């Protein structure tokens, strides 16, 4: 088997990869200005690492790996400090989801059918739009954990160490994020 050693060609980076990296970032951060900044930072950081490129992966895979780390940095920053207020607020909202004494769904928040449970998931634009809005409403930390898990299929250990959350907290966040997302869909779709 012949494996071709991959080469880097910075003269064509923007033409070949900028749009891809931009959409990759946008789908994970949803902020155009920030996405532009990250694409730029990625190329500049990559230039400094050109010597260390071993040619084992494609140019695009290599650039994407650099970008991924930058996105995680953003997640980390967003999830610290003031952002916790959003988290507290979202936690507060969930207090009404279940009865305090026995953990049953409360009448006001119990799941109702979306009307799409029994067929092939509806790929309608409208539902996707609401889903997107509901995801944006999640507190930054929940969104970060949720995205890393479901979109990048990162391991739980990796997410915990990168975002500095404990395993126990990870499960709490995964649970809370889904409860919020589902409740938001129910409120805005039905």
């Amino acid at each position, binding site marked *: 088997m012949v494996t071709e050693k991959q080469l880097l060609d910075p003269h064509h980076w923007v033409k070949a990869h900028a749009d891809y990296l931009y959409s990759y970032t946008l789908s*994970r951060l949803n902020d155009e200005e920030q996405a532009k900044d990250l694409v730029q930072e990625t190329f500049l950081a990559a230039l400094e690492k050109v010597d260390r490129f071993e040619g084992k992966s494609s140019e695009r895979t290599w650039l994407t790996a650099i970008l991924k780390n930058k996105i995680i940095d953003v997640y980390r920053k967003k999830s610290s400090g003031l952002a916790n207020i959003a988290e507290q607020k979202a936690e507060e909202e969930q207090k009404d989801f*279940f009865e305090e004494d026995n953990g049953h769904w409360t009448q006001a928040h119990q799941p109702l059918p979306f009307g799409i449970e029994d067929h092939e998931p509806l790929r309608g634009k409208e539902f996707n739009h609401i*889903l997107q809005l509901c995801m944006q409403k999640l507190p930054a930390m929940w969104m970060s954990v949720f995205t890393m898990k479901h*979109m990048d299929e990162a391991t739980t250990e990796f997410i915990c160490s990168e975002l500095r959350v404990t395993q126990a907290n990870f*499960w709490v966040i*995964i649970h809370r994020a889904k409860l919020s997302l589902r409740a938001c869909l129910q409120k805005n779709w039905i």
Partner: protein
Amino acid sequence: MNPLKKVIYNCKQATLLIEKRQIRKLSFRESIELRIHLAGCSMCKLYNKQSQIINQMVLQLFHDTELQVSTLSLDENFKKELQDRIEGELNK
């Protein structure tokens, strides 16, 4: 209340197990508890279905967004400046 009963009658705990199950294997005990809960709780059964559908749709949404490269492309000026900057760095 003993811990087993706690999950069997507790939707908050049951929904946590539903989320866990989609990411890792439940312990034997957890899986029995959840099964018993779901057998008797139509609301959590519905939650379970919806939770899985949401995961599928989120994945689909991410995938679609990534495919929309053409509609999400950067403007040409930005790209030109960026490539110029890279050339500048290369010539340093």
